[in-house]
């Protein structure tokens, strides 16, 4: 179990990275994609148990360092790591 912090540029803030990714998707033929916004995901591993006080501190960590409230929005929630969600099965390529 991790605490996941997700950070996205505010809707009114231009996202040149997302725009560049969208352009590349269209070049590759993924014409069904109408828009891309690129953000960041942080998976925080804890030293101890998670409780309300710890969650409040992590919210502070998110708004102090992980996100810049001037240009970004963020969420803090309990979640699985992407690795856990993906499972441990070998990829088709056997890597």
């Amino acid at each position, binding site marked *: 179990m991790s605490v996941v912090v997700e950070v996205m*540029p505010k809707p009114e*803030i*231009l996202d*040149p990275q997302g*725009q*560049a990714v969208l352009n590349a998707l269209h070049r590759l033929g993924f014409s069904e994609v109408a828009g891309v916004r690129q953000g960041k995901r942080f998976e925080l591993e804890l030293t101890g148990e998670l409780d309300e006080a710890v969650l409040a501190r992590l919210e502070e960590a998110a708004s102090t360092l992980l996100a*810049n409230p*001037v*240009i970004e929005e963020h969420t803090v929630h309990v979640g699985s790591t992407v690795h856990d969600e993906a499972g441990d099965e070998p990829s088709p390529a056997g890597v």
Partner: protein
Amino acid sequence: MRVGVVTFPGSLDDQDAARAVRYAGADAATLWHGDDDLAGVDAIVLPGGFSYGDYLRCGAIARFAPVMRSVVDAAHAGMPVLGICNGFQILCEAHLLPGALIRNDVQTFVCRDQSLTVENVTTAWTSDYQEGQRIVVPLKSGEGGYVAPQATLDALEDEGRVVVRYAGSNPNGSLRDIAGITSENGRIVGLMPHPEHAIDALTGPGTDGLGFFSSVLASVVSA
């Protein structure tokens, strides 16, 4: 008079900034990111570069370096602070200046000699310029797009806190062509272009940038 130039891991332009300080007739002192001692300097320059590899966001990690605690305290006490490029990003992250810098709207790094209009000549760093003066200094940044909420932009305009504005075409999508701004008391200035690279015709497009460094001498003497 001594002007401190802070070196962070990944700072690139600290030597050029120190050289500009010396060209203007002041002593340049080297300040280290991990040391909260400001060595008795009278003013501070946060130079350009890629502090901490621009990890997380430009300036976001440098903002919490030990030296920044002292810089923030000194700035609040009225010491002149100039942030150039990455230094401007650090000042915004440290909330010493409002707004933020995001990736250029053109999606590429921009490196060119840039025309600017100096609009506020009452700051500690621009008193040697004429209001409306056109200057040319290098601009070299990938994340130089200045953004802030509308209300903040309006306040900056109303209070005359836009120090330099891009002249001609806007190179990076900065809102209202803003290239640099100042604090309410005019002591803190941040800008994306690099005046320290325009102090000698041999190594830059001219000497238009020297005024930032000569201005601060007068401001400290008169303070």
